[in-house]
């Protein structure tokens, strides 16, 4: 290896970034070349000086400003609320809607038991359309509301993330 070739590799040699073979070639040349050894020393000093300068540390004011900016950014973005476990499947929304339907049905049955709502008399008095409408409403509420509530949730970004 000539000085010109070695010179090109010295900076990388000083920072330990050469391949094994390149480092060996460099080392062999350095053993016999005082000029390149001197260059290596200079590069090593530079690399060490650059690397050893203390790391910049964020001041408390800078950290606070960043935290406030991120707060504002997260409010503006309105990201999906933090979810984990069962929340990710949308189960609570479904359960809530189902509970509401359950309460509605219990109320209807209770009203019937207390003679506040008499389906039989409604049928006997020729008000079949009213009974049919009530049945349709119950079927609609029990079938579609939980689905609609669940489907309204935004898709979770994490579901598309590939790690």
């Amino acid at each position, binding site marked *: 290896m000539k000085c010109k070739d070695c*010179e*090109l590799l010295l*900076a*990388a040699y000083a*920072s330990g*970034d050469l391949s094994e073979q390149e480092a060996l070639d460099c080392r062999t040349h350095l053993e016999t070349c*005082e*000029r390149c*050894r*001197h*260059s290596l*020393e*200079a*590069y090593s*000093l*530079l*690399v060490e*000086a*650059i*690397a050893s*300068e203390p*790391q*910049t*540390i*964020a001041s408390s004011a*800078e*950290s606070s*400003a*960043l*935290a406030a*900016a*991120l*707060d504002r*950014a*997260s409010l503006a*973005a309105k*990201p*999906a*609320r*933090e*979810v984990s476990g069962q929340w990710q499947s949308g189960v609570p929304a479904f359960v809530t809607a189902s509970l509401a339907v359950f309460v509605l049905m219990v109320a209807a049955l209770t009203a019937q038991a207390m003679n506040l709502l008499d389906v039989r008399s409604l049928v006997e008095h020729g008000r079949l359309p009213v009974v049919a409408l009530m049945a349709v409403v119950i079927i609609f509420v029990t079938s579609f509301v939980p689905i609609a509530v669940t489907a309204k949730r935004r898709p*979770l*970004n*994490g579901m598309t*993330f*590939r*790690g």
Partner: protein
Amino acid sequence: MSQLPDEELVARCGRGDRRAMDELVSRYHGKLLDFVFRNLGDREMAADIAQSTFIRVFHAAASYRAMASFKTWLYTVALNLVRDEFRRRGARVETISSDSDELAGQEIESPELSVLDRMSSVEIWSAVDKLRDDHRSAIILRFRQELTYDEIAAVMGAPTGTVKAWVHYGLKALRQSLDPTDCED
């Protein structure tokens, strides 16, 4: 939270998890400040750019795909902002170049007492500040941020060989700038 890898934290950020973002901030705020500050030499500007970088990352976290490491992505965003600032400032008035021939033919001094040995950090960083932008960024990413050459290539959008050349010529230019009598070519 502190045990989680960066990529998992970014995924959580994408779901709006502020604690995950706080963890990423605690890992990288200082490094990012250092990177920008060493490039621009302006602490206030460094804080602004570091802040903008994190906000951009936070907004884009949901669409982040782990094609490259988070660290590489973070520095890429920061470097783009730094380059915008370079452009805003216009061409740097004073730069030093390794291909200057004004030093050619000078004799080598004795290695016993190198001027570099006695350089203060202020002098060294003043010289770093005068390097070409890409040389300076490559050197800072390699020796301050300890990125590999491949990572730097990804951040800077250049081939790895080019990055190695930038680091080499940057260090060479620094050496010439700091100790003109010490250079043989």
